[in-house]
């Protein structure tokens, strides 16, 4: 139906019988968003046009100082060692990738000269290689030219286990070769529909070969330039104090016209989110505050007559409650939540269904997330073309109670339901974080009304997300019935995100709980869907497969989506920041400018 129609239309665009605009308008009539329509064109084999840049200034510099406030300051400035996003943000001020993501999830060129496509020969028809053309004339801050050798070197540097980079995962399974001085080719082992992983976005920032070549492998920590970045970016490095301050100044040789706008840049670290919001929105001491995870009514109060406002960016981050598929209370061969057990309560689909009706997502949005959240029935919430329209959700305590009644879960004398001697008692764990504890309370209250006893547990974030094998409280061990957190989607593609829940990835004692499928969910249909999606080079079909995968997850209630979370930033009223929900905050920094009058 729609699929066939779409293909005919895409073909018409290719032949020039419909223009791009006409196509997008027709797609809008189908209820698709504009970025989604352009994406369809791109994946259908039409060259993707970059979205128009909102950048207004007509000359380089003159914007004064840009003062950024990161309440967790970057602690190192080598993108290959960036443990957290804050470090990627800091490195990205000076280093650049080949391309980055704009707010709509479209690719934007940085060091590359053109977006690889089937038409320009950048993409191989079999999906096994991608060829990037590099921008000519780009110079490192020390005047040396940027060439294909630098790109190849970054691959060699990152994939060497002795270098101990955090980017090794991206570079391990690819091969990067130099075609000529301004062309590199990335070869994949198998067809890779999402080819924009290496060298794209802040984690893909490229470091100079001539300064790091001697420090590959075990000597990596001795490189003096780990702390003194020499990049290609819009700002040149002046000073760095880990966790406290980064300073930079305008790069007069920057390769993009009229950019950057600001003469100097400063990134200050430390403190907490609330006072960062205050320093930007209320007193105006700073121009931009990062990751303002503050309750919405506090922000609304600060914004009244303030000097700044909050800025939101939509990505695909979903806060979810995961249901354990194994029994956390039975030990098999010294392992709890073992794959040899079944969860005694959740093996009844009625219990799962009832639980999903007991999460009051509207209330969570109203009371906790406010403008920073969107209610969703899906686990996969972006990019737009991968979001399922087939799913629904509801909050209904009576219906949940009836469902449990019908399934034979009868209310006991203590107000807790039971069946066959098993009581509906659940342990619900999450990381310590204000909004999470409040969400726990909301869910617990509704469950109580429906006769389910919920015990709450909160674990310090650094323990909860730890890979320490000896610690029993990590999310990967999942020694609880329910657990809540979010896994950020760091690129506008669902492959990595959905692959986690393939049954081959279950977390067990054997793999030291390094398996990423922590709900220990095994579903043949899901596995087949993911396998099919990963091999699918027809991108329209591929999107359909990921939508199907999401629908299976929602049907089986592997996760209960709590909130589709938006990125929240604070910005001065005059500042025009460009922030993408699909990238680091500083990924589009070259496009930031200040309006002369607020």
């Amino acid at each position, binding site marked *: 139906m729609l699929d066939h129609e779409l293909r005919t239309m895409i073909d018409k665009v290719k032949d020039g019988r419909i223009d791009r605009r006409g196509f997008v308008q027709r797609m809008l009539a189908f209820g698709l968003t504009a970025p989604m329509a352009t994406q369809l064109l791109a994946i259908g084999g039409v060259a993707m046009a970059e979205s128009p840049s909102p950048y207004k200034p007509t000359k380089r510099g003159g914007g004064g100082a840009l003062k950024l406030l990161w309440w967790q300051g970057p602690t190192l400035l080598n993108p290959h060692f960036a*443990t957290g996003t804050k470090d990627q943000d800091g490195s990205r001020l000076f280093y650049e990738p080949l391309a980055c993501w704009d707010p709509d999830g479209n690719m934007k060129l940085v060091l590359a000269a053109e977006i690889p496509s089937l038409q320009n020969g950048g993409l191989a028809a079999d999906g096994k290689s991608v060829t990037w053309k590099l921008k000519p004339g780009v110079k490192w801050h020390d005047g040396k030219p940027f060439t294909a050798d630098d790109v190849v070197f970054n691959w060699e540097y990152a994939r060497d286990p002795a270098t101990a980079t955090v*980017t090794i995962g991206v570079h391990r399974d690819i091969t990067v070769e130099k075609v000529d001085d301004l062309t590199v080719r990335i070869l994949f082992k198998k067809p890779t529909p999402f080819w924009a992983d290496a060298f794209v976005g802040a984690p893909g920032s490229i470091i100079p070969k001539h300064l790091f070549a001697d420090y590959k492998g075990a000597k990596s920590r001795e490189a003096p330039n780990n702390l003194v970045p020499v990049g290609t970016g819009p700002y040149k490095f002046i000073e760095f104090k880990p966790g406290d301050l980064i300073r930079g100044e305008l790069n007069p040789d920057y390769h993009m016209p009229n950019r950057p706008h600001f003469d100097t840049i400063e990134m200050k670290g430390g403190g907490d989110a609330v006072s960062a919001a205050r320093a930007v929105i209320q007193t105006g001491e700073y121009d931009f505050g990062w990751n303002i995870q503050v309750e919405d009514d506090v922000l609304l109060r600060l914004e009244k007559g303030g000097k700044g406002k909050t800025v939101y960016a939509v990505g695909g981050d979903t806060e979810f409650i995961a249901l354990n598929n194994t029994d956390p209370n039975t030990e098999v061969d010294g392992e709890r939540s073992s794959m040899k057990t079944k969860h005694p309560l959740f093996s009844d689909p009625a219990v799962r269904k009832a639980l999903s009706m007991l999460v009051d997502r509207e209330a969570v949005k109203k009371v906790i997330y406010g403008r920073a959240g969107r209610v969703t029935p899906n686990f996969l919430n972006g990019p737009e073309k991968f979001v399922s329209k087939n799913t629904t959700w509801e909050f209904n305590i009576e219906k949940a109670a009836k469902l449990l009644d019908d399934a034979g879960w009868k209310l006991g004398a203590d107000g807790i339901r039971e069946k066959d001697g098993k009581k509906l008692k659940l342990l619900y764990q999450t990381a310590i974080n204000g909004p999470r504890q409040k969400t726990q309370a909301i869910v617990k209250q509704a469950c109580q009304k429906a006769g389910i006893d919920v015990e709450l547990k909160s674990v310090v974030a650094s323990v909860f997300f*730890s*890979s320490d094998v000896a610690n029993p409280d990590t999310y990967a061990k999942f020694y609880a019935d329910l657990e809540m957190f*979010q896994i950020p989607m760091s690129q506008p593609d669902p492959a990595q995100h959905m692959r986690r829940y393939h049954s081959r990835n279950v977390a067990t004692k054997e793999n030291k709980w390094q*398996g990423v499928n922590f709900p220990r969910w095994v579903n043949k249909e899901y596995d087949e869907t993911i396998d099919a999606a990963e091999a699918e080079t027809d991108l329209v079909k591929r999107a359909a497969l990921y939508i199907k995968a999401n629908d299976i997850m929602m049907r089986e209630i592997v996760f209960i989506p709590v909130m589709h979370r938006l990125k929240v930033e604070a910005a001065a009223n005059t500042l025009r920041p460009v922030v993408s929900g699909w990238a680091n905050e500083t990924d589009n920094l070259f496009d930031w400018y200040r309006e002369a009058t607020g």
Partner: protein
Amino acid sequence: MSQYVLRRLLIAVPSLLGISLVLFIVLALAPGDPFSELATNPNVPPEVAAALRAKFGLDDPIHIRYLRWLAAMAQGDWGFSFVSRMDVDTLILQRLPATLYVIGSAQILALLIAIPVGVYAATRPYSIFDQIANTFAFIGFSLPTFFTGLLFILIFSVTLDWLPFVYSGDIKATGFRWLFEQIRQAIMPVMVLGLFQAASMTRFVRSAMLDVIRLDYVTTARAKGLGQAKVIVKHAMRNAMIPVVTLIALQMPAVFGGAIVTEQIFRIPGIGSLLISSILSNDTPVVMAVTFVFACLVVLFNLIADILYGWLDPRISFR
């Protein structure tokens, strides 16, 4: 005397070893992982975090790690930060100036308030001045710094808009402008800390002074016909200062250690904020180094206080 110092220094060695062992074990047993941030990053496979743990020796048995640390420390190698991937001593030296400046000024302010107020209050016990000074002292040390800090920010930054509340490590100005900005941004943290210190110190000075002022030799000095000011400053105060000097000497490690809460509120890039962020990110080499430096300073200043005793009061002998 020199023999005494030598003996004390030798005794300090086993106690410092003991302290370092306890610190190391506590930190090693504490849960948490410096690479926990990697866990939820879908781009990073879990093996990467495990490989990093192995590379930094986090999976080795505790006693091996302790001996390795001890051997390195003996050679002057303070360790290597997991989180910043740089040497711990550079990290600490970077943070030292801000701490010394802010906390040192706060101590000086506290002394400038506490000594005159305490002494004057002691000369006129239970007078109106004494009552008022006492009341303020009680309010002062009952209010925690995180409360007064926020209060100051609300009044002076948000409402009045006079002072900045984000401390900047280096100010882009020169000459007088630089000095002015440097003072302006330090006013609030110095006041918060200084007033808190001054409150308890005032009480201390007052009671030390009261002890001395009733002694016979002070009455004798008065009987000689000396003026009030001379009696108080030259005769009474000098003796009253002995316990006060000890108190100040023992507070010196705190000056180096910074004030964790205040540094966090005003974003002062000092040692206290380095310690707290290292604890939060489980950067054990940094935590270990900072706490161990504190331990050394405490031992050292205890020794200095003991030596000062003998200098101030020759009746105390060194044995």
